[in-house]
């Protein structure tokens, strides 16, 4: 505040004591920070989930790092991350611009576009499992031969099916983000461009895209880092199969820990997941140019 304020200094400077932050901090320390340390600790132990936890040095790490399934899980994770970004980013950007338009029919369509947001991942997975059934689903229903496939049983196809279902579930969320971004672009920019005779495509490329820079960074970060958390959808849809073809890292961690009862190895996978997630988040922030956190934190 203004330094020449007439308010006495002692009163002005008296902020609330930090204790107001303590309850949230305690919750977060106990159920997020302690587990974070715990996952590192457990990765150096051997534990089946029931009996005593035994220190095991680098045993679990050796298991995880020499297991070809781990490498495969990393590859599947990278593929799903890449393809779902390549599908979701352009589609949600275009839909965001589309739904930000003022036309009545677009507003009506938008109401329906957002319906997938209401469904849980489990619900989406179950719905698509039925829909993609080669006997009782979409293919035989529409009588289109090419659609009659064992979509979830064919290891060449299944990855793309998973990417599609992920897009179906998450494009609406990113569409919303872009819609909000487009609506904040000053109308005057478009009016000026129109006077200059710029067409729709040029307006999109020269005004909309550059103005959406931060929206694109936000949405992309959420997409990329979020794809490390695609667990429930794939767990219910394919269970990681057929074989290991959709067993991505979070699922691999869950199955190693809770199905193969090797909590030590699963913890090592958890550490890998955390390192990748943190690395990606920091990298994307870098790529985004100036760290916008700085301004966010002002006056904190």
């Amino acid at each position, binding site marked *: 505040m203004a330094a020449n304020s007439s308010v006495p200094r002692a009163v002005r400077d008296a902020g609330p004591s930090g204790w107001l932050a303590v309850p949230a901090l305690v919750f977060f320390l106990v159920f997020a920070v302690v587990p974070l340390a715990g996952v590192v600790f457990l990765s150096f132990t051997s534990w089946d989930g029931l009996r005593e936890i035994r220190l095991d040095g680098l045993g679990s790490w050796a298991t995880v790092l020499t297991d070809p399934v781990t490498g495969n899980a990393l590859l599947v994770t990278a593929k799903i991350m890449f393809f779902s970004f390549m599908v979701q980013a352009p589609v949600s950007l275009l839909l965001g611009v589309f739904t930000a338009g003022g036309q009545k029919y677009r507003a009506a369509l938008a109401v329906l576009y957002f319906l997938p947001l209401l469904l849980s991942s489990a619900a989406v997975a179950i719905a698509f499992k039925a829909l993609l059934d080669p006997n009782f689903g979409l293919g035989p229903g529409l009588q289109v031969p090419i659609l009659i496939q064992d979509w979830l049983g064919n290891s060449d196809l299944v990855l793309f099916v998973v990417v599609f279902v992920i897009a179906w579930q998450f494009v609406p969320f990113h569409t919303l983000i872009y819609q909000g971004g487009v609506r904040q672009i000053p109308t005057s920019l478009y009016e000026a461009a129109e006077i200059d005779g710029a067409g729709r495509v040029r307006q999109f490329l020269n005004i909309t895209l550059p103005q959406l820079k931060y929206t694109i960074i936000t949405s992309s970060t959420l997409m990329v880092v979020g794809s490390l958390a695609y667990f*429930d959808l794939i767990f219910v849809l394919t269970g990681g199969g057929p074989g290991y073809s959709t067993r991505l890292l979070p699922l691999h961690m869950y199955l190693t820990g809770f199905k193969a009862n090797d909590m030590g190895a699963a913890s090592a996978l958890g550490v890998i997941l955390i390192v990748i997630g943190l690395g990606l988040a920091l990298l994307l922030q870098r790529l985004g140019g100036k760290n916008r956190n700085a301004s966010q934190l002002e006056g904190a």
Partner: protein
Amino acid sequence: MASTTSTTQLPVPPAAPVRTAAAPRPDVRRASRFRPNLLGGLGGWLWLGVIILPIYYVVITSLKNQAGFFASNPMLPPAEPTLDNYKLVLENDFVRYFTNSVVVTLGTVIPALFVSFMAAYAIVRGKGRFVNWTNNLFLLGLAIPLHATIIPIYWMITRAHLYDTLLALILPSIAFAIPVSVLILSNFMRDVPNELFESMRLDGCSDWAMLWRLALPMTKPAVITVGIYNALHVWNGFLFPLILTQSPGTRVLPLSLWTFQGEFSVNIPAVLASVVLATLPLLVLYVVARRQLISGLTAGFSK
């Protein structure tokens, strides 16, 4: 928890308070009104098909009886629609799972909002190393895929003898909701003019009083938004229920869909009826309060 777990890892702080996503802006793209964007329109309708087809399939199939499901064309509505599947699902303890979901959601969201709101106030109004450090810790929590910590959480919950209780779901869900809640609430609280706080302090108000009599009323829309955001994630959460509960007595809705799938196995219409029933509460909410729900969904990420 994030279900989507998915969309919950939010590494990027929103740059500005949420605007209501659905606020009417009649004149945004004036150009299109004069020269219709045919290609855009075509794409728009095409995407509608992509979105609606699976939903249509789920709804019509849930109304078929099993014989009809095997015999009829999968994409055609049933000749004789029946609600038997819904009856079957309701008879299989659906109400209990629904109640569990309500308890877990409210039990998470209300305490999470309470502690996050106080923390946001301390972070915005307070000074000093402790407050800064706390804020940085929460920001870091946004960038870390917290779900990678499920194994120690499982260990803690079993050691605390909370395994297979609703509290086992509530406690970690509160913790996971805190970083994003504090971030969004503090962004909004910064917009409350400092003079208001100062004049209240001169009147002899304590921080506790200012928190509830000034900060809360001024940031009410944000509180609602954050509440909805968290509620959706907890309501649809799957991972915590999967690893921290076991018996039907503590089953929540998303997990019940998965178990219905196992129990009914070949009775696809009944499985899909459970999907419809589980989504119905949110659909009702969507119909009556679409704007609030939508702004809660993006909770401050729209730029």
